[in-house]
């Protein structure tokens, strides 16, 4: 197949995928009350996908183990929240501290608020990058984790109550106009990050990740490269935080604990470190499966499953293990299975592409063939060994 034709087919498949997604979203949007559950899952997954890709940018593509995502998301959430709540509701929300006068009448549309969140997060990342990015691996992880907790403490501090409403958080944030708005913002954010990764700077990120000594010898300034990655990653973590605030219609510090960072790290690792498509898949899988497994949290009796047993002693017995919290047990076991069998994550460090999907059946066939060949070889060897033994015995 010629390269041109391949490109053409790729275009068609891309367009078909986007059209399918749009049609699906349109179906959901047509009846929001009936599909509210699906809409919730999709919006949440998309938002986490932005956070996961931003984390992958710094961890997977630049090799800097930064765990400050929740902190930047917290900043993003508060900034977006504070700037978008309707002015007339502000006195009611800030009834305890009273909103600061200069801030009271500033209200921005969501997009502008998100942009400002990104900007503020970027600037903060730039400033804390100076000391923090001189650290490596575990030390960097600890420093950024600490930063994230400090941010949480600052936003929960009474002294800033006039701005952040302290531990009460910000609520009544106007929701998304429709599901398209949320998905589009997430899509554009991820697109910008992937474009950066595909650019010359992305190649520099990967060089720093693979071998910083060699990268430096090639004229790549380690510090500037790491800082660029950190700033962009943090800015988009801020966007993700802002989106999460809009999605939940509130911003409270208790959302942005270390557990959130780990949850996002889980998506990154599960999807594939160093793969944008992997992070997106990871975000959808983790968010989705936590919902799909919810049936495990419900207590069942045998008579619920087999109506014929109703009234008998067996029917009144409980199905063992199924009760509140069991979902997380299964979820953890599933995770372990995935990590054991796909230890590079679902997509590995390569991107998912149409060629790769088309190649899966061939790869499976190849694997089967190799297995069969190995078995055949083993059988032949065994037969030869048996023949030899016979011969030896015969003598």
């Amino acid at each position, binding site marked *: 197949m010629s390269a041109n034709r391949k490109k053409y087919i790729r275009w068609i498949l891309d367009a078909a995928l986007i059209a399918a997604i749009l049609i699906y979203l349109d179906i959901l949007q047509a009846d929001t009350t009936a599909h509210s559950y699906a809409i919730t899952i999709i919006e949440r997954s998309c938002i986490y996908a932005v956070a996961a890709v931003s984390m992958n940018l710094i961890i997977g593509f630049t090799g800097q183990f930064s765990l400050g995502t929740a902190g930047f998301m917290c900043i993003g959430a508060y900034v977006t929240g504070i700037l978008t709540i309707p002015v007339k509701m502000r006195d009611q929300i800030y009834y305890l501290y009273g909103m600061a006068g200069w801030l009271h009448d500033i209200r921005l549309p969501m997009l502008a608020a998100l942009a400002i969140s990104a900007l503020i997060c970027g600037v903060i990342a730039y400033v804390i990058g100076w000391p923090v990015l001189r650290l490596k691996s575990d030390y960097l992880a600890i420093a950024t984790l600490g930063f994230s907790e400090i941010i949480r403490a600052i936003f929960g501090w009474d002294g800033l109550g006039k701005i952040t409403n302290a531990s009460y958080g910000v609520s009544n944030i106007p929701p998304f106009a429709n599901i398209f708005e949320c998905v589009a913002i997430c899509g554009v954010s991820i697109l910008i990050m992937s474009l*950066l990764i595909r650019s010359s700077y992305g190649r520099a990120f*990967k060089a720093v990740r693979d071998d910083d000594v060699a990268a*430096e*010898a*090639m*004229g*790549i300034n380690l510090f500037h490269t790491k800082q660029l990655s950190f700033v962009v990653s943090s800015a988009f973590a801020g966007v993700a935080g802002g989106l999460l605030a809009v999605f939940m219609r509130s911003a409270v510090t208790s959302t942005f604990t270390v557990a959130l960072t780990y949850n996002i790290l889980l998506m990154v690792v599960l999807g594939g470190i160093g793969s944008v498509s992997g992070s997106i898949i990871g975000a959808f899988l983790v968010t989705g499966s936590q919902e799909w497994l919810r049936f495990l949290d419900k207590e069942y009796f045998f008579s619920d499953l087999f109506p014929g047993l109703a009234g008998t002693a067996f029917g009144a017995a409980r199905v063992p293990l199924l009760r509140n919290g069991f979902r997380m047990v299964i979820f953890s076991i599933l995770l372990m299975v995935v990590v054991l069998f796909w230890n590079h994550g679902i997509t590995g460090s390569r991107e998912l592409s149409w060629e790769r999907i088309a190649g899966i059946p061939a790869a499976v066939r190849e694997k089967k063939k190799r297995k069969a060949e190995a078995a055949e070889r083993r059988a032949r060897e065994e037969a030869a060994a048996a023949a030899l033994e016979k011969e030896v015995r015969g003598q």
Partner: protein
Amino acid sequence: MSGQKEARETVLRLEDLTMQFGGVVAVNNLSMEVKKGEIVALIGPNGAGKTTAFNCITGVYQPTNGRIEFQGQTLMEGCPAGRVAKSYAGENAGKYTKNTHHSPDEICRAGIARTFQNIRLFPGQSAFDNVLVAKHMRAKQNPFTATFGLNHKEEKRMREETWELLRDQNLDGFADYPAGSLPYGMQRRLEIARALATDPTLLCLDEPAAGMNPQETLELSDFICKIRDQYHLTVLLIEHHMNLVMGISDRIYCIDFGRLIAEGTADQVANDPKVISAYLGMQEVV
């Protein structure tokens, strides 16, 4: 040396370079010159301080004392100060008064490219990407234009030049292969191609023939001469392999225990009794 060579400008000059680690003086009072278009070798037995000198030139270490000049500009200058001054065991203390340091990436930008003794490619990335990333430094772009493809002309130029380099090195058939999967000799050539991609004036090769068989070594010496002429390079070579060094070097510096013990053409150095004793471990010849 002929009169014409005398007239050539000096590309790299080391003046009284001394590098001390704790109480060990790894490089002691080393002075040398590399002139434009030359292939100069720095040889010496194991532990003589070759790689330390090399690491000073490429910015990995800051010299304890002495100066390194590149194309007339001071690249590195060190003077023993503070605690080091008390334990300083080298010579010429007090001759240099400044501390100037440039990081490896700044030195690369200035025009000194290097390869590594133990090959340091980006093993998981394709051979093409390995070379392409070295073009990043000199590209006219910023993160914004690069992200949104506003630098497509620059990007196209970078890719074309990378192809050209790979073709020159006969590596274009392996452009899509992960660098780590290539055979050893090819990885060496790829690393040199990557160094060439930074448009250097001076190419520093750290033991390029390490781990090569005689045939590969022979090819390598032709290859080094070829790229010198093709890219108008000056080459500084650190090597163990005497065959390679004797065959291609215009001048050779030999060091032992950090000190310069001989310099001159291949014949001069090869017949120098000090060099012979250093290599064969005979009694010190006075």
